[in-house]
């Protein structure tokens, strides 16, 4: 979760404002939302992902399912795919998850009933970057119609994203081999500070004519973590297909949570549908993104100033909340035990935990870990 420079959680100013508006609106009540969610939320959420001028939206071939966070969107999408993709109830369709990935991806698809979950090459530990060749090879070798979970931006946990050119190559192979793109978009706006930039990959795939799913989370970019605000965007070939898909999504939602929670969706819908509030929100998102970018550059410059062995440009080249530092498990243990700095055994740090006050300490500690422990 995001933290301020004081190390505190941050409720976005625009969220506070909108919550007050909602509280003061006596016409609002707590009645059930429709099964697929608040209509104004769904339309706006998908519009954010696909862009105001999205051809898919204009052609009325976009569907949306309000979900319980990004996880809920992934799960509803997975349940639908297991029932209706590549045949009926085909649990054998291979699911490809990046190596590494958010560990819950595996569980989501497993619990949705898929039996064959594989990894695709992604992180190159040696060069600390994307293993594009490995990734493309895996796509060439994958059985036709396999489903690939793609991180739309700010790959979790490596922070390493394909460049636009690399995305184009990926899309080319996927189209040729009839592979299904399931995007996980948890950090739109939060990664680069720009909503459009962070949605480039998803929009490119849409422009290339793919049918796809995109699981969106508003936990980070709206700071609405515990309200569980998410959206599954469905892009289909035409309106008729999308309509039938949504009718089946309703059946799945009905036995999972019946209808989604209203508070978070109201906040997001109100914000996105007002030009003024929308601008305010974009400003708040940029504040968060900029602070993370600043911490990245400050950490890197300190390590380079300390002449810490190794190269540290990956810290600023990576993007989003997380960074794969390259620290090995022994070095991580040193950080935790000796320096009381908590990070994952994989060497992943949460950049949000860095503040102007602790940058020096963290940089020095990394320097110690790298020089003392091999």
């Amino acid at each position, binding site marked *: 979760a995001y933290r301020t420079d004081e190390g505190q959680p941050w*409720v976005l100013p625009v969220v506070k404002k909108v919550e007050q508006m909602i509280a003061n609106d006596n016409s609002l009540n707590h009645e059930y939302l429709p099964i697929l969610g608040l209509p104004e939320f769904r339309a706006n959420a998908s519009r954010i992902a696909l862009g105001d001028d999205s051809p898919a939206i204009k052609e009325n071939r976009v569907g949306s399912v309000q979900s319980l966070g990004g996880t809920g969107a992934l799960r509803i999408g997975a349940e639908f795919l297991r029932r209706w993709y590549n045949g009926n109830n085909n649990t054998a369709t291979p699911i490809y998850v990046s190596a590494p990935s958010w560990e819950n991806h595996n569980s989501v698809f497993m619990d949705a009933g898929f039996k064959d979950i594989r990894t695709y090459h992604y992180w190159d530990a040696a060069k600390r970057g994307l293993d594009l060749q490995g990734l493309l090879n895996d796509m060439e070798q994958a059985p036709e119609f396999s489903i690939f979970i793609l991180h739309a931006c700010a790959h979790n946990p490596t922070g390493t994203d394909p460049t636009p050119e690399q995305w184009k190559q990926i899309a080319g192979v996927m189209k040729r081999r009839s592979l299904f793109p399931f995007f996980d978009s948890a950090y739109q706006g939060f990664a680069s500070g720009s909503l459009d930039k962070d949605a480039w990959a998803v929009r490119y795939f849409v422009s290339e004519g793919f049918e796809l799913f995109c699981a969106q989370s508003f936990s980070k970019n709206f700071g609405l973590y515990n309200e569980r605000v998410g959206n599954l965007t469905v892009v289909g070939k035409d309106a008729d297909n999308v309509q039938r*898909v949504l009718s089946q999504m309703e059946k799945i939602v009905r036995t999972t949570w019946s209808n989604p929670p209203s*508070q978070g969706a109201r906040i997001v819908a109100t914000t996105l549908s007002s030009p003024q509030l929308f601008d305010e929100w974009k400003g708040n998102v940029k504040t968060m993104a900029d602070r993370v970018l600043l911490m990245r550059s400050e950490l890197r410059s300190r390590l380079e100033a300390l002449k810490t062995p190794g190269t540290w440009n990956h810290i600023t080249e990576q993007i989003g909340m997380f960074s794969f530092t390259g620290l090995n498990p022994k070095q991580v243990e040193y950080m935790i035990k000796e320096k009381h700095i908590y990070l994952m055994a994989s060497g992943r740090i949460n950049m949000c935990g860095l503040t102007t006050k602790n940058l020096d300490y963290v940089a020095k500690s990394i320097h110690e870990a790298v020089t003392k422990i091999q």
Partner: protein
Amino acid sequence: SSWWSHVEMGPPDPILGVTEAYKRDTNSKKMNLGVGAYRDDNGKPYVLNCVRKAEAMIASKKMDKEYLPIGGLADFTRASAELALGENSEAFKSGRYVTVQGISGTGSLRIGANFLQRFFKASRDVYLPKPSWGNHTPIFRDAGMQLQAYRYYDPKTCSLDFSGAMDDISKIPEKSIILLHACAHNPTGVDPRQEQWKELAATVKKRNLLVFFDMAYQGFASGDINRDAWAVRHFIEQGITIVLSQSFAKNMGLYGERAGAFTVICSDADEAKRVESQLKILIRPMYSNPPVNGARIASMILNTPDLRKEWLTEVKGMADRIISMRTQLVSNLKKEGSSRNWQHITDQIGMFCFTGLKPEQVERLMKEFSIYMTKDGRISVAGVSSGNVGYLAHAIHQVTK
């Protein structure tokens, strides 16, 4: 071509269809009796005062929006358990239970169904009363369980087929799962009397069945939270293994906030901890952690003495209005000159009433009087008000005389 060419259009939701038709109707006297949400005497949604107060208190505390634990808000789950089990419950005081926050009643049922599918190896069979809430079947089915039924509602008397139920239940294979509505049976409104519950419990115990209680209307049924939870508490006291789903949608009017809870009664606190860890493993790949808003409101109400008192009064108010509408409907039917026996309308309890009307009569009510209900003759008494109960009685008499 599309990946989805073979995807069939899902069946239209029957209850939604009722509301859609109602909305299109231009008759000023129209009535929507399909709605499964409480309405006040003006036919409007009702936001409880204690809910408004709780919301104001929460807003003033300026809390953050950090993720809840996977199992939910602890103050909420503890208060939910205490509400259901009773503060003097041995099971509650000893801590031999686990309660996780669920997405209202549906989400809690689903977690429970998935948990049983994974850990209850003795049987795949879940026995539902005939009829039951329409969503029970697909929930358990999607969780990988099989559905069976036991007799429950007697359409001839519009009341409980007690001997039929006892007969069927006494023949359920041992170690099967039986689902019971704790109070205010949906859709019939027919509940066993306490004496009947005692006999049911004895049979269930003898057959060594696992009981899944669905309690969606505690307080909302009789107006008394302890009375409505009597069956749940009795079964636990009898040493029967139960799991329980609770909803705060109706009794706190928190419908769209999705506040609910799933409870497993265990042998001891250690077992409860192990069960909890497995429930979390089920929840994480479903939605990671639950929404905070409804749980915070419910928790504030249950844990703040003044608000809790106010809530008990308000929930009794809602229950009383429903009961009063039942009484007025019957007396108005008598005034219309109906010679039929309408006693079941006041015998039944909760939001819904199985009128006993046949599909053709339901159709006439819709076409001739703009009164909308589901084809099975179920009405939501919440949709009845002092302003339209006379019209309803008149219409029912016209189609049944």
